[in-house]
């Protein structure tokens, strides 16, 4: 039962990732694309955690923690670039 649920969840996040890349490809302007990239990071984290549960290993958990910690930094940097031009003033 659990396995089926996990597979469905993984598939859903996979589809979400594909939708994200669609936005990255087709969106107007940089802002939406950066937002889509940020969502991709989150979806990727989710997918890795699910995958870790599926295979009962803690390794993916740690990787996804680190993804969570540093993944948003690039988003911040893009945002600063769009708003201020210089990211370290």
């Amino acid at each position, binding site marked *: 039962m659990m396995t089926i649920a996990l*597979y469905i969840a*993984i*598939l859903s996040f*996979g*589809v979400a*990732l*594909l939708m994200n*890349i*669609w936005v*990255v*490809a087709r969106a107007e302007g*940089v802002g939406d*694309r*950066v937002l889509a*990239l940020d969502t*991709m*990071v989150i979806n*990727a984290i989710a*997918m*890795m955690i699910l*995958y870790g549960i599926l295979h009962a290993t803690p*390794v*993916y958990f*740690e*990787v996804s*923690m*680190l*993804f969570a*910690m*540093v*993944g948003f*930094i*690039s988003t*911040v*940097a*893009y945002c*600063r*670039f*769009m*708003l*201020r*031009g*210089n*990211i*370290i*003033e």
Partner: protein
Amino acid sequence: MSLALIAALPFLGALLPGIMIRAGRNTCALATGSVTALALIGLLLHAPAVLQGEVIQTQITWMPLLGLNANFFLDGLGLLFAGLILGIGLLIITYARFYLAKSDPMGQFYTYLLLFQGAMVGIVLSDNILLLLIFWELTSLSSFLLIGYWRHLPEGRQGARMALAVTGMGGLALIGGMLILGHIVGSYELTVILENRELIQQSDLYAPALLLILLGAFTKSAQFPFHFWLPHAMAAPTPVSAYLHSATMVKAGLFLMARLWPVLSGTDLWFWLVAGAGLITMVMGAVIALFKDDLKGLLAFSTVSHLGLITMLLGIGTDVAAVVAVFHIINHATFKAALFMTAGIIDHEAHTRDIKRLGGLRTLMPVTFVLATVASLSMAGIPPLNGFLSKEMMLEQAADVGFFFGLMVTIGAMFSVAYSLRYIVHVFLGPKRDDYPAKPHDPGFGMWVSPALLVVLVVLIGLFPNTIVGPLVATTGGAVIGSTDLPYYSLALWHGFNIALLMSVAAVALGYLVLRFHPLFEELWNDARRPEAKEIFDALIDLCARGADRVTNLLHDGAMTRYLAIFTASAVLFGFAAFMGGTHGSGTRETLPMSVVPIIGWLLIITATIVTLMVHRNRLLSLVMVAVIGLIISIGFAYLSAPDLALTQLSVEVVTVILLLLALHYLPKETPVESTPGRRIRDGAIAGFAGLGVTGLLYAIMTRDHDTISWFHLEQSYPGGGGTNVVNVILVDFRGFDTFGEIIVLGVAALGIYAIIDAALRGPASRRLANFKPDFRRAGDRHPMMMVVATRVILPVALTVGVFIFLRGHNEPGGGFIAGLVVSIALLMQYMASGFTWAQKRQRFDYHAIIAAGIIIAALTGVGSWFYDAPFLSSAFDYYTIPPLSEFELASAIAFDVGVFLTVVGSVMLALAELSRIGRHTSVSVNKDAMDIDPRADTPAAKVEGH
């Protein structure tokens, strides 16, 4: 003294002069002299045994797999040459002390001289021919430094360059020849090669080997048609000329021919090449020498001529001729070194070397006159001096070959007499003049003692040849011909009335007549058209340089697209060629079934790549795409059970994005269209083929079973390196040396970025930056409070994670590199949130120092293993218990990892901080406070203008 030590002494001693020069010029010369004297004493201690016929050997294994061993041996030939090099070296050091002016850097001179001396001694003592080649190249390099010593003179620089080009080219040929020789015999040891005459001469490779080796010897010994570099090398200070061109450098080629004489000589090819080149060189050098007005030019061409004479003797191929060659090497070294030194004295005292401006120096410089006269007469071959003895023997050998040889050498000898007498008559005799550039007088004792000692030898060898050099000639001759069974020869002044005496008398008489009518001949000579070697050489070099430029521009014209196109296209071509030559069956491995996750990943990366292609002219968008692709690759690594790589990839991705965004601020945001549609189609085709090729290759590899070293790493990771994280154990232990190199490269790259930006900010770029205007209107909040607070909260968490990842790295995913990146990112967030000025003020450690500390710690960890008799960077590990902690493992590799960690943090932060420093040079204002609106303050924070 060990032979290796004798060869090494001058190299070790070369450090001395640079230090001792601070204690004065006398101390410096004394220190240099004592090094050479020590080596000479070490050599002479072996002399009695060698003269008894013993061969002394020293063997040190160096790189046995390459056949390269530091093996030395000393027989008669080595003893003679090493003795000449060190003995005359000692005299030259004395002479140079008084010759060099106060403005000449003497420490440098003696350092170069000792380096050269060491290289020469190395050549003559080497048993291993690969070792000999190394020393051979060293003589080319060190003589380049010596000849170009007066680097302010263009002639000096050009002469040095020419000498290096010609002898370097010969050295290259020699390497080929020696390798062929070693291949034929199957050993690179000279002692073995010398015993395989039959094998070598019957080999099909004998001719190419001989040609290449002779090319090396001829260029070094200035034999026709490579004689032209030697006169141009005369731009060097006279001590250099005296040393290089009498006893050492140019004799290296002769040494080589003499050394290999037993195995190479005796064939027709050897005779025609060696004796022919020698004969031409001898006659031509003598003729040109007569018409040189520059004293050193005259001596240079006379040296060329005498080298030709010795080469010819070696080329004749009979045992007696070889022994005569040895004898003449000794005699030539003595009188020619003395003559060069007297030429230097005249130049030093009269301030000119032009014979046309000299004359009548006999009474002004009586000591120099006596020395120069005796040495010149010996060079002319007048009894009872040593030059006469060897010249007589040479004439006899040449006459034995045939009438033509006899005639030619008599003509050569005639010109030799003429130029030798000219050195006396036109310089010292004649009326005293009153237009010398400086008033000539004899130099101090220190300057004439060296030539005087040599002149005494000239006379003594002439009078008592058997007593003084008889045993040496016998041993050396035996070593050259490779047998103790010496042919009959007699070292004596009087051999009775024979053909040689007749030729000798004719040469002297005609030589005198030629000098008598010198003005007449000179007019003829000056009117004659003749090729100018330097012009031909320069044109040739120019041609080569232009050709090289053309090829380089074809491949590397500075356009990245061209590099990539050429590189990729050739990779595809080579790959295709290899593919056509192999089998094309598919692999035997079972393929895995397709599952959902990889299909999604594949779709993601394909889409991302296509989108990148579509948006690549918008630089910010393409940067976003870089981040997308980086993310997908990280997921891929995680999926393929490589969490270390996933972590690294992600952190590197973040740092890269920040770095590029920093740079992009000052760059155009759009890439202009520069390529034509045709070119894009071409590039697309190349890229498509490359992609298909790589795909095919991967498919082929992954469907096959193959042996990899992964299994070794997996098995040995815990027992050998004490860690269960194989990736980390490979990084810090198995391939620790690579990592050590890489962190150095990383540190150097960061310093490079620092240097480039620092230099750019000082130059015109700084002025352009001052006028820099942002290309869009900026949003108002410079340091948003939300962001500042968030980054402050994250900082301790991120640092803890960094420490955690670092500590567990040896056994679980992590390690110094990832930890370094995580910590850098945590710090970078502070820079982004509160600005450069605020963050930099709180940065107490210089990033340069952090890089240095990292590399030093890593190096010390490596060195530490030496104390346990283990090779560099061996690691050890053990288990410890510190209450209340449970038992834990400590590997020495963790100290190395600290080094990696520090270097990564220092490098990343230095590069990014330096890039953001550019902003300080614009006219945009900066904020010293953490936030734009500080809730603690009553009034809004003051804004400070940037400089």
